[in-house]
């Protein structure tokens, strides 16, 4: 495995650069070993490769960040609450229609009575509406408050971890490269077989 320094791209051109070995873009890329093309001539690619190897050799699985545990679940629940609140708001003004099924003068009379009753209760209905508005506003505020609290709580949990991380450089931990093989999904043995399986 080796690196290919890219050509000097400062030449102003919209044409792609002439990489040392340009593969046919329609085919799966096979550079037979070269894995990274670094777009910076001043970078020592061999040094970068060595660094990657030495870093890889020291990796061990890390424990979860405390600040993130349960975030997705909480977010899902928060979205469900917001959805319920939205439904509640959409039904707030729905007091039903004043209608009559009768068609004759009796129907018109029934409608008149019903409208009269509705008017009579309008004040009460408006008051109810105001209460509902305040209630939904309150529920919205509660949801926002819990979201903020969740955010603040996670920041509190994250703070000591950050301090600890700043104190201990990550590259100090020792382990062998085989630690990678314990990852949940093993990388494909080669890219082509992985590609073909799609």
């Amino acid at each position: 495995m080796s690196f290919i320094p890219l050509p000097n791209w400062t030449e102003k051109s919209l044409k792609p650069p002439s990489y040392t070995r340009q593969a046919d873009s329609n085919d799966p890329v096979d550079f037979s070993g070269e894995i990274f093309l670094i777009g910076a001539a001043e970078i020592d690619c061999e040094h970068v490769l060595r660094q990657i190897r030495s870093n890889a050799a020291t990796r061990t699985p890390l424990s979860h960040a405390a600040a993130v545990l349960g975030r997705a679940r909480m977010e899902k629940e928060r979205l469900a609450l917001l959805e319920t609140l939205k439904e509640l708001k959409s039904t707030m003004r729905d007091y039903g229609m004043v209608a009559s099924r009768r068609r004759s003068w009796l129907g018109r009379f029934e409608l008149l009575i019903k409208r009269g009753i509705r008017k009579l209760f309008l004040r009460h209905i408006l008051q109810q509406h105001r209460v509902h508005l305040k209630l939904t506003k309150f529920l919205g505020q509660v949801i926002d408050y819990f979201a903020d609290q969740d955010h603040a709580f996670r920041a509190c949990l994250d703070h000591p971890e950050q301090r600890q991380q700043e104190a201990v450089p990550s590259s100090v931990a020792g382990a062998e490269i085989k630690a990678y093989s314990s990852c949940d999904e093993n990388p494909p043995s080669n890219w082509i077989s992985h590609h073909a399986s799609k």
Partner: protein
Amino acid sequence: MEIHQLLPGLHSGDAISNHAIALRNLLHAWGHTSTIYARDISRGVDRECRPLSEFVPRENASTVYHYSMDFDNVTELFLRCPGRRIFIYHNITPHHFLTPHNVAVARACQNGRERLAELQSAADIVLGDSEFNCRELAENGFKNPRILPILVNFQELDGTAPCPAVVQQFDDAWTNLLFVGRLSPNKCQEDAVRVFARYNRFIERRSRLFLVGAWRGMESYRDELRSIVHGLDLDDYVFFTGHVNLPELVAFYRMADLFLCMSEHEGFCVPIVEAMHLDVPILAYHAAAVPGTLGGAGVLATRKDYSLIAEMTHLLISDGNLRDAILRGQGQRVTDFRPASIAERFRSYIDELAAA
């Protein structure tokens, strides 16, 4: 001069749609009459165009056809246009990527590729977004295909304040990896997740992956991605944002420590240009038009070795010298995509059309 544009669809936040709108604005600025006609129109951009049914081919009008898949009536309309024609090829996603998730779109893409050769002599001027697209056009018998990169509105990106809600939620000491693009199997978001899984599990737990992009029509692929994320125990670290507006997009770019692109098929890849412009280092898979758009900047991975790509991700984020060198390269490369120079190029094609 009267120059109209035909598109299969005009959608908010879509690169081809934005390109068509930008070209229309240029044509207006140069004193031409120009209207966009689209088959499917999303809400939010409906004022920018007219339905395809209103398009009437006229002798004295030129037509620009943005080709990215084949919908019979659009192609037929273009072929019926008696005036001069410009064909812009945005490339077509290979249908095998899409077949398991959206048969209709896969069929449109397959038809698009099959009909490409038919269109070889249909236009007076043939354009492609990238060298990669032009190469495909040449392979399909098109004569003299030329490059017209997609216009990216840098001014709009610079002038938009990042969404405060997004910034408040995510702008902290955590490492943010970003990929921007609709959820689609050809963009291989699952590989970005797998790279991130190694980065997150072995290198930096305090990290997130943002997959920014809509999934309309690709719900089954989104579910597949979610199950991969769940299987890797990354639910709390990976964010599917869905469609975002411009302030949100700018916020994600501003907070990103690295742009990670594992896409296997791109006709141009606008997000790469945006990332270069907004100083986000890019680590991308060497495929399709991506190397051409990067033009020697950024870092390309030639194999999908997730572990090594994760290590390179770590270096690009933590090694100041490497990061600065990459950013310098990207900063210089992005000047090639200045709207003014692309507009100049487009103007020369229009002049050529007028003189023909």
